[in-house]
């Protein structure tokens, strides 16, 4: 049994107007944001989840933290099943760092109030040690202790993001999910936050799930990367292996599309044609087929499963492992 186990998780939202559907005598349209995602993570492992907007990566994170209900499938941590209505003691073990530093901290509270509230409500440390623990947390995320008295408005984006990390660590979680946690920061302050996450993971033996649209960033912090497209995982491989030799055409295209130093853009060229289809109206067979350079007849008929030589070397393309034996 793995430490964190995500098993065939599906998340659906009903979208559009129920009234419109009622008039048309149809069921309200259902959007499947996350469509049968499975993966296992070990304690201390760092998993990157990468994909473009609308691929379901943030929804997956919210499902794991319990912020959105799971339609089917299961999530378990350390052998314990995590339902939507999990009790606070279990909830505590999976914490999250959010994207936008301007809205991820309560503007009314000082850092100390924020941290001590959590320590108090969850009885993390005895009451008389709360103040000391707050100082320790600040040291952990490398912030000046004097900032304990500050409110978010007085802090820079990078500082706020560190407070966000401290807040998550206050509950002594086993799993830390970072959802686009550096995307809103200025380029020059991203690196220190990434370095901090890397060192904290080692220091505290955290299982880190790092969600991002940016392949290079994911590469920097993850042991293993899952690429998502329209709610599905299309590739799940160890980081170095995937970056050297991507197997899914979408992964290849994403890597080709990312701007690189010293490479001039060719006129009119692009790695990936067209735009993703609507998640409400998916094509038959493989959902990447309409944009795929390799698309063949089989892709129209059968949706490829996520398979590969091992549990952590998987890709959802009929042609991904053509040159290799698949051990199943």
């Amino acid at each position, binding site marked *: 049994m793995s430490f964190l186990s995500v098993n065939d998780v599906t998340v659906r939202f009903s979208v559009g107007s129920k009234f419109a559907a009622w008039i048309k005598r149809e069921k309200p349209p259902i959007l499947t944001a996350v469509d049968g995602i499975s993966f296992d993570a070990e304690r201390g492992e760092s998993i990157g989840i990468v994909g*473009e*907007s609308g691929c379901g990566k943030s929804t997956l994170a919210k499902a794991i933290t319990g912020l959105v209900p799971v339609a089917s499938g299961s999530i378990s941590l350390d052998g314990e099943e995590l339902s939507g209505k999990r009790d606070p003691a279990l909830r505590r073990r999976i914490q999250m760092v959010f994207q936008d530093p301007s809205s991820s901290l309560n503007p009314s509270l000082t850092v100390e109030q924020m941290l001590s509230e959590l320590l108090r409500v969850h009885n993390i440390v005895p009451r008389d040690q709360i103040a000391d623990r707050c100082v320790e947390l600040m040291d952990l995320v490398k912030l000046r202790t004097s900032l304990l008295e500050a409110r978010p408005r007085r802090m*820079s*984006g*990078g500082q706020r993001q560190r407070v966000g990390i401290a807040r998550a660590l206050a509950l002594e979680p086993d799993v830390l999910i970072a959802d686009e946690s550096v995307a809103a920061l*200025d*380029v*020059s*302050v*991203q*690196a*220190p936050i*990434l*370095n901090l996450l890397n060192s904290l993971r080692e220091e505290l033996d955290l299982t880190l799930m790092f969600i991002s*649209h*940016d*392949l*290079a*960033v994911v*590469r*920097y912090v993850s042991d293993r990367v899952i690429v998502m497209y329209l709610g599905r995982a299309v590739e799940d491989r160890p980081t*170095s292996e995937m*970056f050297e030799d991507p197997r899914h055409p979408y992964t290849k*295209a*994403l*890597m*080709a*599309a*990312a*701007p*690189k*130093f*010293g*490479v*001039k*853009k*060719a*006129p*009119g*060229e*692009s*790695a*990936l*044609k067209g*735009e993703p289809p609507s998640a409400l109206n998916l094509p038959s067979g493989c959902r990447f087929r309409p944009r795929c350079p390799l698309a063949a007849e089989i892709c129209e008929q059968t949706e490829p499963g996520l398979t590969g030589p091992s549990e952590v070397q998987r890709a959802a393309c009929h042609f991904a492992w053509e040159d290799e034996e698949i051990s199943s």
Partner: protein
Amino acid sequence: MSEHILEVRDLEVSFTAHGQTVTPVDGVSLSVTRGEALGIAGESGSGKSLTLKSIIGLLPPNATVVGDLRYALDDEEPIPYAPADVHGHGISIIFQEPMTALNPTMRVGDLIAEGPRIHHGLDKKAARVKAVDLMRQVGIPTPERRARMWPHQLSGGLRQRVMIAAALSTEPSLLLCDEPTTALDVSIQDQILGLLQELRGSLGMSVVFVSHDLAVLGELCDRLAIMYGGRIVETGPVDEVFADPQHPYTEALMTSVPSFDATAEQLRGIDGRPPDPRAFPPGCRFAPRCQYARDECRSAVHELRDVSAGRTTACIYPELIQGVKR
């Protein structure tokens, strides 16, 4: 015939509120030659976007602009202009967020037709045909159908293409780009960059492209200007700047983003935060965050000095820079 299509000398943009004056653009000079793509890089608060908007006079009314702006019509020498002179005549702009940049209550085809109707005196019907042509030119599939759609019915990538078509509708010789790919997905950004590169070639336009992302600028631009704290701190051809940055800030910017092809080594990043225009530090504005800073830096007078042909830097100790290992 002059080489330059645009010349900006000692541009200052300032705002006064509650008796306090802030100058987020503080003495910027730059020039763009015909057919050239100039990239302006910088972080939030560097003044890059304000610089761009003052070229086309789209700053909010409470902004004060001082400086010498010259633009060359056809084959003439650059001459001073008022922003209204270039609206629809020579300079166009595209923005970061195409949803807010398109009129929500106007069909996209009608918006693109505005330019031809005003400047070429086309009637409604001819302008509409022209609009559809432009939409086809920027790679919008089924342009006849999409011309009748409202902005909110299009995806982000198509909206940005509509924005580009509207900008091209006045046949500009200089296109200003204000982070036009930042709000887009990587694969769509890649498409838009390819499109802009293609249009540059086919229309012979000059481009000024503003972005926080050096790699994006590198894909499209010939020359780079790096801005920090309301000033340009380094300029030069893209390849040379990347290979051998002559300002510590440029170097720091390059080493603070994880790269794609190199194996993971510890990223350096930059301590502190970008300076607040309300309280720029004295001397070299990067000095408080600079790993090479010496005492003299804190009183250095800002001046762009030539390093080699076509390259300038504001750093007084460029020889200290260790260089980027890539």
